[in-house]
């Protein structure tokens, strides 16, 4: 309780501090370069100066935080990746050479590509299908809310939920995990699903698909509603059936949005860490890059060189999407 009071206290102090900064700097700026009540030339000169300075006063705290917490670390990670485990001696590319020869790293790369292939595709597909179906029924909004709900659940919470579903009891005893109970009911043999090499990747992916489908659904549903009625009506008049209307008329019109959903989930997949940590911690050949990186940060006292090298690999995989995003944003800015 005491720490909660401390937290609220700091929060109030922080907010007041920010407010004081923004108000105070504005006030001082107006004091040094007053424009009210001055003669025309001086007023316009001062106004020009304050207008040039004020944006930077508004931006300063944000730029400071962005620099410390995102830009500086990106540069330093690259620096650490060419240094030894404590970050002291330059070792050239040896961390990267180690990485390429490390079986666990290659396993992680392979698994990450599996994740990248499966999760964005399935989540977008389910999202699109659900968005299309729920738009046609009266209880569609309730259905959407329920499918959207896992979005609020933490990866760790979701891992517990699904570990319970994958729970395994020896053959012959009653299964309390839903999946094994279903398998047994159909006469199959119960399996310890998350320990099956290769296939366990898919059982882990199911969790992320479960979480992300709601996100895809919400965005694609809005995009579907934005499609001009006339195009659909024209297709109906031309005698197109439901499938043709959906795949040939509606889907092509929302390609842009589908790409956005796809890339957003792709970024998330590259960073997936909690699910693997909680479910298998990389055992049974289910390791992924983000968890491997975390592992090396602390393994054997921590190897910052190798950890940073793995982080750089994740960053490199993200860069194409980053460039694409920036170009799209720039295009849109011109449109404004």
């Amino acid at each position, binding site marked *: 309780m005491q720490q*909660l009071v401390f937290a609220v206290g700091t929060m109030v102090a922080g907010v007041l501090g920010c407010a004081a900064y923004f108000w105070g700097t504005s006030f001082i700026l107006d004091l040094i370069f007053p424009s009210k009540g001055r003669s025309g030339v001086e007023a316009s000169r001062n106004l020009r100066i304050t207008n040039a300075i*004020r944006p930077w006063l508004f*931006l300063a705290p944000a730029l400071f935080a962005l620099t410390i917490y995102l830009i500086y670390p990106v540069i330093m990670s690259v620096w650490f990746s060419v240094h030894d485990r404590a970050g002291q001696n330059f070792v050239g590319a040896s961390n990267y050479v180690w990485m390429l020869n490390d079986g666990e790293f290659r396993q992680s790369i392979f698994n990450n590509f599996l994740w990248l292939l499966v999760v964005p595709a399935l989540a977008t597909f389910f999202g699109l299908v659900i968005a299309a179906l729920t738009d*046609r029924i009266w209880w569609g909004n309730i259905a959407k809310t329920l499918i959207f709900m896992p979005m609020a*659940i933490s990866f760790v919470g979701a891992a517990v939920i699904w570990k319970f579903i994958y729970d395994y009891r020896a053959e012959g005893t009653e299964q*309390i995990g839903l999946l094994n109970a279903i398998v047994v009911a159909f006469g199959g043999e119960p399996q310890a699903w998350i320990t099956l090499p290769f296939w366990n990747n898919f059982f882990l992916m199911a969790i992320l698909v479960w979480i992300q489908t709601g996100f895809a659904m919400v965005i694609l549903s809005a995009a579907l509603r934005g499609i001009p009625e006339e195009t659909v009506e024209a297709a109906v008049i031309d005698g197109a059936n439901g499938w043709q209307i959906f795949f040939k008329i509606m889907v092509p019109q929302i390609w842009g949005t589908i790409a956005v959903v796809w890339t957003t989930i792709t970024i998330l997949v590259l960073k997936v860490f909690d699910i693997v940590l909680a479910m298998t911690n990389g055992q049974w050949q289910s390791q992924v890059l983000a968890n491997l*990186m*975390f592992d090396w940060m602390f393994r054997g006292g921590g190897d910052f060189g190798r950890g940073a090298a793995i982080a750089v690999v994740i*960053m490199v995989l993200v860069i194409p999407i980053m460039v694409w*995003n920036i170009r799209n944003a720039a295009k849109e800015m011109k449109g404004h």
Partner: protein
Amino acid sequence: MNPATRSPLTWAVHLSVLLLVALWTLPTAGLLISSLRDKDQLAVSGWWTALSTSTQNIVARAPGADSQVERDGKFVISGDVLAGTAAGEVSAFGFSSQKPTAFKPGETAELNDGEKLTVQADGSFEIVSDTKMEGSRGQRIFFTAAVPPRFTFDNYVEVLSAEGIGASFINSLTVAIPSTIIPILIAAFAAYALAWMPFPGRAILIAVVVGLLVVPLQMSLIPLLKLYNGVGAFFGVPAKTYVGIWLAHTGFGLPLAIYLLRNYMAGLPREIMESARVDGASDFDIFVKIILPLSFPALASFAIFQFLWTWNDLLVAIVFLGAGQDELVLTGRLVNLLGSRGGNWEILTASAFITIVVPLIVFFSLQRYLVRGLLAGSVKGG
């Protein structure tokens, strides 16, 4: 659509949506139901049987020889095997662990030393012997009983007190609330500058923010950990503090905050600001009195995102706050329990539900803003 083609197709749509909804809700429902079940029942039967009567194999021990009474020249020990259990009816019993279900209720079992054991369906039992019985340890009685479904909050009481979930709940709140509030004000001013104040380099700054949106958190961990250790050593304070994690969450949340708010503010009508400026209002006044109130929906959207993200975060918390018993947040505690209490589903399900209940409340009460934020962040900006 004409009614003839409509009905079978509509039914198919209803059915498939129903199926999908079931797929998406059953996992969480199973967790919630399980967390409310009696832990003995939870361990032996699936949660989908929670409402049906289950059979359990139970062991009871009869009182020792000193509680025997002499009746009609025989020595008798009596009692009730169901006392203290939730079970309703005995369906079979036995006296050895090899054959725990050898006898039907009402039958008499001949024990090894000449004593006779009878257990009735209602649980009452009698051990009858011709000679005086000896020994302080009573006879073990194995029986199978039908147990009616039982729901309880015991699991929650246990995890909140004994497993440290209660303390972690406070830790999570301590992390999440300031981490949500602090970035909003900083981002709002920056977003206003980027949306409405012309200055050289504005387009580049916006591009930088868009780029930073997708920088993986993993990049930041090692350099920041080093930096924190250095700052901590320099000032003689611990490297892992709440202030440190609040600032870290602030830094990581800023790109999305600035991006969302800038997009929203840029869409506000220019006339409002121009007329205010004509009236002599400064940028500071315009921002505080006009833009900030108008931007409330975008602020709310970001606040919800940031709260969900900081509450659900595991990585930042264990790196910048530590994994010790006192500072573990809920997600970290849950991961630890998965390791140490892997088979104790009554503890795991109850703990998991406590960690997800706050986000679920936020989700269901503020879903409107969440959807709006998602749409602003993805469709518009691309």
